[in-house]
């Protein structure tokens, strides 16, 4: 049985790292972007702790997935909402679990359809080391090797908890 970390302490540690990271790079006006659904919860938590006055948006990457040919659209698609100008903005892109990297590729493609950000910093709660694309988080809560056939899922929004499930596909 894989031991899953507690979300609370991870978030605290990520918030500290992110604050340092932004300071080092002299980024004073970032905008947060959470990827639906788990990424939005993590983004909201970090946003509160790191830069509550910064704007915050959400992305649903359903229209940019690379597996439409295999799976089609998911049943529920939410509108993406970026209530700020992306051009020239330093973005903090947040997701819950980094697995293959395909979600992040889709999210980057979608972000660039809004404009040309000055930079994109990737923040994820977990990296489960199943990378299929050259995508790594700049700020990471924890790394975790999962046994084959298992997936980790974030449930929330309160409390935020990690649970282990059998993979469905």
């Amino acid at each position, binding site marked *: 049985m894989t031991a899953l970390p507690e979300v609370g302490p991870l978030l605290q540690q990520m918030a500290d790292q992110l604050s340092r990271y932004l300071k080092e790079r002299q980024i004073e006006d970032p905008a947060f972007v959470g990827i639906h659904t788990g990424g939005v919860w993590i983004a909201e938590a970090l946003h509160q702790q790191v830069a509550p006055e910064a704007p915050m948006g959400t992305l*649903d990457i*359903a*229209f*940019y997935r690379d597996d*439409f*040919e*295999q*799976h*089609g*659209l998911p*049943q*529920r*698609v*939410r*509108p*993406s*909402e970026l209530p700020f100008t*992306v051009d020239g903005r330093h973005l903090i892109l947040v997701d819950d679990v980094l697995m293959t990297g395909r979600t992040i590729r889709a999210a980057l*493609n*979608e972000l*660039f*359809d*809004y*404009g040309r950000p000055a930079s994109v910093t990737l923040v994820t709660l977990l990296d489960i080391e199943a990378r299929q694309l050259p995508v790594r988080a700049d700020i990471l809560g924890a790394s975790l090797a999962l046994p084959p056939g298992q997936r980790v899922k974030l449930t929330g929004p309160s409390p935020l908890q990690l649970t282990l499930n059998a993979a469905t596909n």
Partner: protein
Amino acid sequence: MSQTPHHLQLNHQGQLRHFLTIEGLSRELLTELLDTADSFLEVGERAVKKVPLLRGKTVCNVFFENSTRTRTTFELAAKRLSADVLNLNISTSSTSKGETLYDTLQNLEAMAADMFVVRHGDSGAAHFIAERVCPDVAVINAGDGNHAHPTQAMLDMLTIRRHRGDFEKLSVAIVGDILHSRVARSNMQALKTLGCPDIRVIAPRTLLPEGIDQYGVRVFNDLRVGLRDVDVVIMLRLQKERMQSGLLPSEGEFYKLYGLTRETLALAKPDALVMHPGPINRGVEIESEVADGPQSVILKQVTYGIAVRMAVMSMAMTGQTTQRQLTQEAN
């Protein structure tokens, strides 16, 4: 071979694979379609109004009947989904319907289209094509005779939902030439399915179809009675080209009795929405001041139409994809 449209248009998992009619579709499916359209509406507000969903797919607009708005919004919808688009305007020839359609279809299939968007003057044309098309090819009805215009109905529903919210609390009036209107039929079905408790149909007796009662609507012959306290007024175009003699005394008479003017609109709720599928006949069914007035959402309907058509196309492609995989697994 013949299946009823509502079975033909769903795959074995109940997902949309053709979109031929509102009839027989569930409230859940219509709501899912509206939710998806909401997300596509947001895409239309971005710097780059395009998503890669249907990249590499070919959508064929096959129009046997003229239409500017419907064809261009379907074309724009397909392009915003990154599909390649072919537009074919085919004037209906004197050959019998079956032969013409079937020959055309075979030609189009040879071009390896993934989706046909069909507008035809005969009721049942899109259904006819959907029954005969290769597996994997989706057929979208862009209006067939006086039968159905389901994407128009769904863009009307999106308009109502975005501007008035919950269907369960609304009174909606559909006014004018119901007899020739596929929009009216599809709208009545959609409103009913979405739980609208008070659907009113307002028309002279001569412009009402037989069996109007089956739609569960209230029929009014007097505009001034029917419009009282409604939340939404959907005006229909007087289809002059389809009008046989005797149905209508004169356009002037029609306007006097059934035209939506500032005076008649005042009978509805103060903020009632004014809708029209277009093209509008100013001074025939609607007064210019009302069409261009603050309560009118006629141009919004056009914008919403693009998002609804994007949703229909991507959901139909999803249904086709799932069906193909189910078939492969079964073999």
